[in-house]
Every structure is written in structure tokens, then in C-alpha cells.
């Protein structure tokens, strides 16, 4: 149990998926201008990453390894993720329209969110077992959402700040993320 706690703390704070592992930056910077879109994207990512982590783990150990096709991992995983996103979208549209309304517009963006594929590959590279995969995928996605919500709350204040015009928009957002990452660097060593 303690091991899982350590894995969670490490995935959310110490090796935060965006701020320390450099994954998922495009949606992170793209949709963090407003708090409500940031929250929506965060929820969609948590949902898809956890599911994708579980399915790709099974694909790796039940299909690719026994057949000696490890070299096709990249192509297999991206296809799994793309079809999963498509299926989730169709399922939500039909059965949970309310949730679809909230998350729907974010789902197509998730296929090319490298955090999803990245986490799936890390699960295999670290040789996690199935339980660790579930916990790590979920916690990493929570870390992603946390970073995104933090950034959104900072960016919502930009209109009231006097930013040099050349730095308005992306440049200042990037520098803000840098400072956020610096703060997260303070968690180094937390998990020994």
C-alpha cells in the first residue's frame, strides 16, 4: 500500500507529467486560458488516460509480447488510443449526453495529446504490473489536471497585468509555466 502512495505522490508532484516530464504541453498551453475549459479538459484526460493505460498494458502483454512484435508498439498503441477516443465519444454521445456536452469538444484533441501515449509507454518501460499501471496512469493524469488548473487560474489574471505587448499570449504563458515548474522542483526528494 505504501508503495502505491509513493507512486501517486511521485506521479502528481515530483515527476509531474507536464512540469517535469515535458508531456502533453500542446493541450496544456492551448486550453488553459479559462478555468472551466481547463477543468473540462482535465476530466477528459483523466478518463481517457486511465482507460488507455489499462488497455495498452493488456495489448502489450497479451498480444505484442507473445507474438514477438514489440517493435510495433508505437503503431499499436496509437491505434488503440485513437479508436478508444472515438468509442468513448460515441458512447458518451448516446448514453450520457450531459457528460458528452461537458467533455465532447475536448475528446478529439486527446488523440494527439502526447501525455496519453507517453504514459502508456512509461507503464511498459518501467515494467509496471497491472495494478501499478492503473494507479500510475490515474495519478499522472491527475497531475496533468492539477498543473492545468493552476496555470488557468494564473492566466485568468493576465488581462489585469501589464505585460509587454511582445510577450502577450504564448511567451508570457510559457514563462509562467517555467516558474510553476520551478516551484514543483521543490518537491524533488519528497519520495526519497
Amino acid at each position, binding site marked *: 500500500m505504501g508503495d502505491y502512495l509513493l507512486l501517486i505522490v511521485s506521479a502528481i508532484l515530483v515527476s509531474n507529467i507536464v512540469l517535469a516530464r515535458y508531456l502533453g504541453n500542446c493541450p496544456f498551453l492551448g486550453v488553459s486560458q479559462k478555468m472551466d475549459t481547463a477543468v473540462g479538459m482535465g476530466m477528459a484526460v483523466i478518463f481517457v488516460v486511465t482507460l488507455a493505460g489499462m488497455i495498452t498494458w493488456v495489448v502489450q502483454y497479451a498480444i505484442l509480447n507473445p507474438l514477438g512484435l514489440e*517493435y*510495433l508498439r508505437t*503503431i499499436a498503441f496509437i491505434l488503440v488510443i485513437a479508436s478508444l477516443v472515438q468509442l468513448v465519444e460515441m458512447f458518451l454521445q448516446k448514453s450520457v449526453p450531459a457528460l458528452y456536452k461537458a467533455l465532447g469538444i475536448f475528446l478529439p484533441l486527446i488523440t494527439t495529446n502526447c501525455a496519453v501515449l507517453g504514459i502508456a509507454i512509461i507503464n511498459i518501460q518501467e*515494467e509496471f504490473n497491472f495494478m501499478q499501471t492503473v494507479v500510475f496512469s490515474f495519478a499522472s493524469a491527475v497531475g496533468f489536471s492539477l498543473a492545468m488548473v493552476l496555470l488557468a487560474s494564473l492566466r485568468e489574471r493576465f488581462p489585469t497585468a501589464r505585460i509587454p505587448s511582445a510577450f502577450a499570449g504564448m511567451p508570457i504563458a510559457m514563462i509562467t509555466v517555467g516558474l510553476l515548474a520551478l516551484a514543483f522542483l521543490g518537491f524533488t526528494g519528497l519520495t*526519497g
Partner: protein
Amino acid sequence: MRDLIKMVVVLLVICTTSGVVLSYVNEATKAPREYQYIKFVQEPSIKAVLSDYDNDPVKERIKLAVGEDEEGNPIEIVVFPAKKGGATQAIAYSAAAKGYHDLIEVMVGVGPEGKLTGISIMTHTETPGLGARIVEPEFTDQFAGLDLDTTKLSAEGGKVDTLSGATFSTVGVITAVGAALEQFPQIKKETF
């Protein structure tokens, strides 16, 4: 309906072509990939454990079958011979055992009498500052000249001092080296 068939056919053709081409590339790059792995991961360790030779141990490597695993598949090890004037002086090969976290892979060099000419740690994931000190010369140098009987902890009548605070890592290295030395009589017949 015709559209649907066309879609399925196009996707199938693309996937099949991709699979065929990739399996060809996979086969074609197998030999250079193996060579690069040996050159960059194993060669530094091979050089560290062998001395005084005039051949290229990597080029003259031999594959030997030593026993079978539980499923009856042959266990193969790769032996790198160090020769001088055509006569084998010593051989290098690798073995692995579990340390504190995960497998520790060790390259051992063995002389004709079954005495170690040196050991070198190739891969490990031990804790930095504690178990990771197994790669330091102060630790690895004490293995030179030992044989199967003396490759034990000093406390158990052997000649290896435990790294303070890293008993599991020390024992992991000793287990790996011991396993390598146990295979030596069998390998000796084929090499010297």
C-alpha cells in the same frame, strides 16, 4: 454501403502494407541493432574487465547454449574471448540478479583457472548515493582475483565487503557474479 466497403478496404490495405514493410525493416536492421547494443552498452564493460589482448572480443563473440529453462528452450549466453597471439587469455560474459529495486546486470571477466579478472556493472536501478555506489571502482575492484568460493560477503567467510546501507545491492551483485562463475566450468570446455 459501397462507401463503407471502400473505407474498410483502404484502411486494410494501408495497415497490411505498413505491417509488411515494417517487418522487413525490422529484419533488415536486426544485425546492426544487435551490434550497436553490444558496442554501446556492453563494450565499455567488456573493456573494463579484460586486459592484455590483441583481438576484437566483440567481433569474435560466440553464442553458447548452457542448459534449458523451464519450458525447454535453450538458455544462450554470449561469450567475448580476449586472445593474444590466437590463444584465449580470458573471457567476458554477463549475468544478472535482483538488487534492491530491479535487475543488476554485471559483466564478468574470468581467467582460465576460474578466477575473476574483473567485474563491471552494466545496468542497474539502485538508489543514487546508496546502492548506486556498486558501480564505483572501490566496490568493483575487490572482486578481481576472487573465485566461486571467495565471492561471498566477508561476514560469511568470503572476501567482499558490504557497502554500508546497501546490503541488498551488494548481495545482488554477489549473486549475479556467483551465478556467472557457476556456469564457468561448462563454458570453459568450449572456449579455452
